[in-house]
């Protein structure tokens, strides 16, 4: 199809109809308002009607958080080797990695690097929810520890944005081991007196919650984020009872004493900067 087929008539799209939701309008899953996409994007991907925080990829997250062009990525090429040679349902983990890389334009489920937040130098680790559900495998564990070690060496605060479905089952006990590994690195960081701020975005569940996400000196959550250990479906299936309204949300976690504060996406930058200032030695 070349230029010839390009119609001047603008009232009809030749694109398949299924792409329509990707168009100008979108529906908020919470208040069900029809929203103008660019208005939502301008609003940091937060619903202007009900402040529903849409899920955002790691690159967008970094763009919202750090000073313009200040993010310098480390270890961007680190890839998993598929330690178990995992195959399932006629496909393989390797294939799934390729597919998700294409789909999400990401190479793994975490980006790490150095950056400035309102002029304060930090080491960052940001999870990518669109890459295998932001699950933690060997690469995420390695990158996380590298970020911790770098923050320790440079005496910089560590800012992490958790956003994950948990441990990556395709890597079996290797991924389970990343929970212990990241926690151990944080224990060392703590002994060295480092500041660790953890932001919990929707969703933060499973092995990520049960390791580095719950170990922040300061734990900040985005409004409405799903935060928990077991997934809500697993719990409902186990106890066979309907889950209470608002169960496992950021607000629920605040009420039960597991996060320090809930911060609107538009205020995250300034709140992190303020915490960094308070903790300056």
């Amino acid at each position, binding site marked *: 199809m070349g230029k010839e087929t390009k119609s001047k008539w603008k009232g009809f799209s030749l694109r398949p109809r299924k792409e329509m939701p990707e168009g100008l309008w979108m529906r908020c899953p919470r208040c069900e308002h029809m929203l103008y996409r660019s208005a939502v994007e301008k609003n940091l991907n937060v619903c202007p009607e009900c402040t529903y925080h849409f899920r955002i990829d790691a690159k967008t997250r970094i763009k919202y958080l750090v000073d313009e062009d200040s993010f310098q990525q480390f270890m961007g090429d680190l890839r998993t080797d598929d330690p*178990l040679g995992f195959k399932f349902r006629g496909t393989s983990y390797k294939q799934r990695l390729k597919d998700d890389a294409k789909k999400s334009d990401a190479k793994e489920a975490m980006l790490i690097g150095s950056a400035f937040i309102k002029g304060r*130098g930090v080491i960052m680790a940001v999870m990518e929810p669109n890459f295998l559900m932001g699950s933690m495998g060997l690469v995420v564990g390695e990158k996380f520890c590298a970020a911790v070690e770098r923050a320790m060496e440079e005496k910089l605060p560590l800012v992490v944005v958790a956003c994950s479905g948990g*441990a990556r089952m395709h890597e079996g006990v290797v991924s389970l*081991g990343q929970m212990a590994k990241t926690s*151990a690195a944080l224990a060392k960081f703590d002994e060295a007196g480092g500041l660790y701020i953890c932001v919990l975005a929707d969703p933060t569940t499973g092995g990520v919650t049960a390791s580095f996400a719950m170990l922040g000196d300061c734990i900040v959550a985005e409004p409405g984020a799903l935060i928990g250990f077991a997934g809500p479906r697993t719990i409902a299936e186990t106890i066979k009872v309907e889950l209470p309204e608002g169960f496992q949300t950021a607000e629920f976690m605040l009420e039960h004493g597991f996060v320090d504060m809930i911060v609107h996406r538009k205020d995250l930058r300034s709140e992190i900067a303020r915490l960094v200032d308070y903790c300056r030695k």
Partner: protein
Amino acid sequence: MPDNNSSKDGNHLAFEEKVADLDRQMNELRKLTSVKGIDYSSEIRQLQRQQVTELKRIYSSLTAWQTVQVARHPERPLLSDYLNLMVKDFRELHGDRCFGDDRAIIAGLGQIGRERVLLVGQDKGKTTKQKIASNFGCPNPEGYRKALAKMKFAEKFGIPIVTLIDTPGAYPGIGAEERGQAQAIAANLYHMSRLRVPIICIVIGEGGSGGALGIGVGDRLAMLEFAYYSVISPEGCAGILWRDGSQAPEAAEALKLTSKDLYKLGLVDAVIPEPLGGAHRNLHDTVHNVEDYIVRTLRELRRVKIDTLLDNRYAKLRSTGVSATEKLRRRTKAGRERIKEALEAIPGKGKRVPAKV
């Protein structure tokens, strides 16, 4: 969960058909001996020999899913058996000093060989009543917090820690979430990595995911031969990746959850042999093998200076999975070099640009 994998008499697993058949034949002969007074002892001995051969054949080539069945066998030795047979003068220490006393995790002081130890383990319970009390071995947050409190107590007096892992997983319930299951496990991983006493962790049955890891961080991780250790239950994994829970046997295979596979991957430090036909066929030998491993390993760890021990523990945790893939290790090294380059390229590193919050 409906258990359709054990045969009808309950003692034999589905793949032990022949063994069960030989048992029936021997029982028949014994009955005849006592009723009719005919001596069948040589025939019985013959059948016994056949049975041994058969067990050797089966257990030398168990599939991953069969291993899971053995690890979950209703007569497999549980924590209470180890406490009874291996630990002298056990004094249980109850409660997390905060919410309650979780019966899914038991902690206490005792003596193994000549060593005083703090023993922490998951208990599934034997009788129905015990099973309910211990929540079928699925701990709640207070179980992990109790474990941590007692471990810190042991650290204060230089008492080594031994943990025996046997859980399908941490309990997924409303109360567990309200009281911070994730936080409780995370705190254990964090503190266990730094406790200044030797820690030996042994998976004796089921090593169910984060629930197992919550008392599973230490200087050594060992597994009984037919125990399993996995990031997710085979049923759960099959439900998600195969979209069909009945594909659990395939999922079990793919997850590489057996002691043999995990040892090969460098993810466990030792495999403790089980008696012929699995731990449930010989309680005493199983406990003896575990005790032997603990005594030997404690002696070995005792010789190491505590700072060196902690450094080694950290190095071991830090390299988790990396030793499994040599290629990745090389890439990681290259990655570290790239970090160095990237850091050198940071504009104005060190000088802070002041700005208003």
